[in-house]
């Protein structure tokens, strides 16, 4: 019995315990403790991240003669760390004051904790998968577990959950088809067997496998054009649940894609396959899918007026960076992509939690009905500030480091258009996150929000710790880069040479320790210059320039609606809802087809069809 | 004003009692009428003759006769004629009916007249302060309001020929230094 066995068993145990203890008032804390213990067990395997060999689970199951087994390597450990850390933060957040409030609002925090644990268990099972079959089992579990989380809130959430499961089922079908094809080729579900025959696959087979897996797992990641389900579904999930799902759930698709497409099939094959009548290789096509996944959702996010939706749309967009980085052959890019998984999870979780904190106090996430909260919730403001700097990829937060690695590798590989696409995504992110923080925390404080206070510590502490992570891993990116390098090694791709402060390479270094120190030194100089001037006096927010107009508390003086009016004047008509249209037309086509089939079936005698089918199948088997 | 227009108007207005029409020129008509009949006249002109534009309501304070004169200026875009309907109301209590229900813009004119003359219009939607938001004195456009006296009572004045100016003048300077005098200096 090793740490992995312990972890999986404890995780299963937590699911059972929280499932039965739902009604308990202390269910939340119980779940937090259990998740904390799982974290400890994971830490017991920390050696994985520094080069220890993979840990195999000591139990295995055999289904239809096919063995299922589980193992942990550096990559699994890396993803499991993110999973457990974000789950723990969400769980603690939901266990305290928020849970009480949720109960009063008519929700069931115990059920939320159960869903959280179930998700964690499913994800750990997926991350630990040692063969294709256990991968598929884990994958299905993850899909259904996140459905449970999404539909918790009921109402509209149910509808969005249904939409999700339609997509997820379609994706699962594709994955299953791929697995069956592999089984036909190799006669087993072992990774090693598939890897062994991968070099001898024909180009057509590689294309088929790649497309099947990219579609199947990409649906979960929200790759364009299968991204429509995600934002609504995540936004409707209760706050801490959304933080967890937003942070890591979609990345499971990336993990599975990494194993199958990058580790087993290999990027080398993809690069060598030319798309007919173009100068693109299959890899380039995928990179462009990633680029569009960055741009379109990011700019959709800019138009959102609900804080949760805005964040959820960004979640889709950031997934594009990870895929783009990982499709790069050089170590910089893949390290950037992997590191971005970690970085993104850290700030996205905090952002969702902060928005939930704002909802907890004001009962709204509508960006047109907030404003000026910084004087009332200063710590939440600080958390959000740190994390939007991370999300926007501006130094000194960790989001910058991973994006820098991706940019750098795009320059090295000479891909100007993709580089521009990723920068456009970043700029769009800056615009929309400023809108987020401005409309929520800056500007005029509404009369009805004058009396609110900062959220309680049970909600504050998870946010504080996670945003400390955002800052520290930005200051010392080497910590994460160590894990990332091990994960790269586990994937069998080139490993990034790095230092504690960043990357040293002959054509351009990154030393965040120096940069951050100088930056804060600069701030110190700025503060010195500022405070050496005469003392300033705070004035009331209504003592404000309005062209001589006398402002009163009734004046709504906060610029929030249609925040980028000038830009929208230019690009507004580009938002045509093409993907919505595509989705609905696909739906219509399917319903038309089914109606036609039904008509056909009803207009003739059903028995005839039965006879026909029976004859055909007899012929098939006989032949 | 063509013959046909004139006839049409005469036919239209013959039912109104006490109406006296005076024509100044091709484009201007003056109608003197009793206050009771004015709403009927306006309704008729607007509804049947195309006088859709109430361009102003003006007020005159005839203090010797103890009356206010209200003048309603109506304009037709079809015949291009301006009709001014004059009525006289008693200065005290100075109350008249609003024509807001016939011409919506009348609300602003009536509010203005109320503020400046103190005439109250019954049925006008808003009789609160309009332009003189700080004003607390009597309606300032009434003839019995002595603006100069009020100014003298309210404001202080500063000496228009202070010592320092005299000093400068003694030195041959002053505020007025024409370019010619300057040229002479050089």
């Amino acid at each position: 019995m090793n740490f992995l066995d312990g972890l999986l068993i404890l995780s299963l145990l937590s699911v059972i315990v929280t499932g039965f203890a739902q009604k308990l008032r202390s269910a939340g804390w119980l779940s937090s403790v259990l998740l904390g213990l799982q974290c400890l067990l994971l830490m017991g395997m920390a050696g994985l991240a520094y080069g220890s060999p993979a840990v195999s689970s000591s139990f295995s199951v055999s289904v239809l003669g096919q063995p299922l087994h589980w193992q942990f390597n550096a990559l699994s450990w890396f993803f499991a760390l993110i999973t457990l850390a974000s789950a723990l933060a969400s769980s603690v957040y939901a266990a305290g004051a928020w849970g009480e409030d949720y109960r009063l609002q008519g929700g069931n925090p115990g059920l939320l904790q159960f869903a959280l644990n179930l998700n964690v268990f499913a994800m750990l099972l997926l991350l630990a998968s040692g063969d294709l079959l256990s991968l598929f089992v884990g994958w299905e579990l993850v899909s259904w577990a996140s459905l449970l989380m999404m539909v918790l809130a009921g109402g509209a959430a149910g509808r969005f959950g249904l939409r999700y499961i339609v997509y997820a089922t379609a994706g699962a079908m594709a994955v299953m088809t791929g697995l069956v094809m592999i089984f036909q080729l190799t006669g087993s579900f072992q990774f090693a067997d598939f890897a062994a025959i991968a070099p001898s696959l024909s180009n057509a087979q590689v294309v088929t496998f790649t497309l099947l897996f990219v579609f199947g797992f990409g649906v979960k990641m929200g790759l364009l054009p299968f991204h429509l389900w995600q934002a609504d579904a995540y936004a409707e999930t209760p706050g801490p649940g959304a933080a967890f799902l937003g942070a890591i759930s979609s990345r499971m698709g990336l993990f599975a894609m990494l194993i199958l497409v990058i580790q087993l099939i290999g990027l080398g094959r993809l690069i060598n396959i030319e798309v007919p009548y173009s100068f693109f290789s299959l890899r380039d096509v995928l990179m462009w899918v990633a680029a569009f996944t960055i741009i379109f959702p990011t700019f959709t996010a800019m138009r959102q007026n609900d804080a949760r939706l805005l964040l959820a749309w960004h979640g889709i967009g950031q997934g594009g960076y990870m895929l783009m980085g990982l499709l790069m052959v050089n170590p910089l890019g893949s390290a950037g992509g992997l590191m971005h998984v970690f970085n993104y999870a850290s700030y996205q979780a905090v952002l969702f939690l902060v928005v939930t904190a704002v909802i907890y106090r004001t009962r709204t996430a509508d960006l047109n009905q907030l404003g000026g909260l910084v004087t009332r919730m200063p710590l939440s403001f600080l958390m959000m500030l740190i994390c939007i700097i991370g999300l926007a990829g501006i130094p000194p937060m960790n989001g910058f480091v991973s994006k820098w690695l991706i940019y750098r590798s795009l320059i090295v590989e000479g891909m100007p258009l993709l580089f521009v696409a990723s920068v456009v995504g970043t700029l769009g992110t800056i615009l929309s996150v400023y809108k987020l923080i401005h409309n929520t925390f800056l500007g005029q404080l509404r009369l009805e929000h004058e009396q609110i206070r900062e959220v309680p510590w049970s909600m504050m502490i998870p946010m504080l710790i996670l945003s400390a992570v955002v800052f520290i891993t930005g200051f010392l990116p080497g910590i994460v880069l160590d894990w990332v390098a091990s994960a790269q090694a586990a994937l069998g791709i080139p490993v990034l040479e790095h230092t504690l402060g960043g990357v040293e390479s002959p054509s351009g270094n990154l030393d965040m320790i120096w940069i951050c120190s100088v930056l804060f030194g600069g701030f110190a100089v700025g503060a010195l210059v500022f405070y050496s001037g005469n003392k300033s006096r705070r004035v009331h927010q209504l003592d404000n320039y309005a062209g001589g107009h006398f402002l009163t508390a009734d004046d709504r003086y906060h610029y929030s609606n249609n925040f980028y009016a000038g830009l929208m004047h230019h690009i507004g008509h580009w938002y045509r809802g093409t993907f919505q249209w595509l989705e609905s037309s696909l739906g219509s086509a399917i319903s038309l087809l089914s109606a036609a089939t039904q008509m056909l079936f009803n207009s003739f005698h059903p028995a005839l069809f039965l006879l026909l089918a029976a004859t055909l199948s007899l012929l098939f088997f006989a032949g | 004003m063509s013959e046909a227009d004139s006839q049409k108007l005469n036919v239209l207005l013959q039912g109104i009692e006490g109406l006296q029409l005076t024509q100044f020129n091709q484009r201007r008509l003056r109608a003197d009428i009793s206050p009771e009949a004015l709403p009927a006249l306006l309704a008729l002109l607007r509804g049947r003759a195309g006088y859709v534009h109430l361009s102003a309501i003006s007020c005159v304070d005839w203090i010797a006769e103890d009356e206010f004169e209200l003048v309603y200026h109506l304009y037709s875009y079809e015949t291009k004629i301006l009709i001014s309907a004059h009525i006289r109301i008693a200065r005290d209590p100075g109350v008249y009916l609003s024509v807001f229900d016939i011409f919506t813009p009348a609300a602003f004119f009536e509010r203005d007249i109320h503020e400046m003359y103190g005439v109250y219009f019954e049925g006008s939607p808003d009789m609160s302060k309009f332009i003189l938001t700080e004003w607390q004195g009597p309606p300032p456009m009434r003839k019995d309001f002595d603006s100069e006296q009020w100014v003298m009572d309210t404001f202080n004045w500063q000496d228009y020929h202070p010592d320092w100016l005299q000093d400068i003048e003694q030195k041959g300077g002053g505020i007025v230094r024409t370019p010619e005098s300057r040229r002479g200096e050089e």
Partner: protein
Amino acid sequence: MNETLLTILEVIFMPVVAFVIGLFMVLMMRKLAARLQRRVGPPLMQPFYDVIKLYGKQTQISHGLIHDIGIIMAVGGYVAAESLLPVPGMDGIADKGGIVMLAYLTMIPSLGLALGVGQCANPNGSIGISRALTSMLAYDIPYIIVIFGVAYHFGSTNLIDIIDTQQAGGVATWGISEMPVLAIAGLFALHASLGKQPFEIYIAPAEIATGPMVEMGGKYLGGLFVMQSFQLYTASVLYVSLFLGGGENWITFLLKCFAVLAIPIIIAYLFPRYRTEDLVRLVWKWPVMLALIGVAFVMT
């Protein structure tokens, strides 16, 4: 250890130099504007007078802590960014960041300003910031393509390497002679990034009352003056480093910097202002097209 100490000294000294040069750049800007309008223009020390006066204001009006911090970030961010820009004799920490780093580090002052303005709760300020961010979205695209092209051409994102390569090969290897199309696109982007006419949509005094500066007085406005002088310095030095071979010595360096800056300024004061959407359309069309053509030349 000695080297570290030297670097620290340079890091302290470089912003000071940048500040002084930046103030003279502001002066040059105002002088040029005056000459174009057939005026005399301000005296030599006018920028110093302005800054000292603003810091010496007796009452300072603050709208809250974030308002203060915004100004500190706006000034401090540029103080830090200056140490990434090599000048003759001083490299600072240019080898630890590179141009991509610099491009993002210069966003920190803008972000600080945006936060400070947001706290003021003045819609003119917020509109100004929304326009400033929009114009940033516009001009950063050609700017980043230019940076890509230069980095690809020199095979490095390290400014020191880029400058050394150009100085070693003489004028013929300068960025401007090897990548003239990119240089033009870069100048266009530089002009747009300065926020001068016709791209001054976010200041727009007659329209939104100087946008972000609407609630800034005293040392707050003084901080923004300092920020502006840093901004002019950063933009011109970066351009000189990328395309004009950096500075061999202080004289040629300053000459190049002031000359580079003079071009957009002269253009600026001959134009009125674009509307936001027209700015976006213009900048996404011409400089982006030029920059892409330039990159195509560089990569073939």
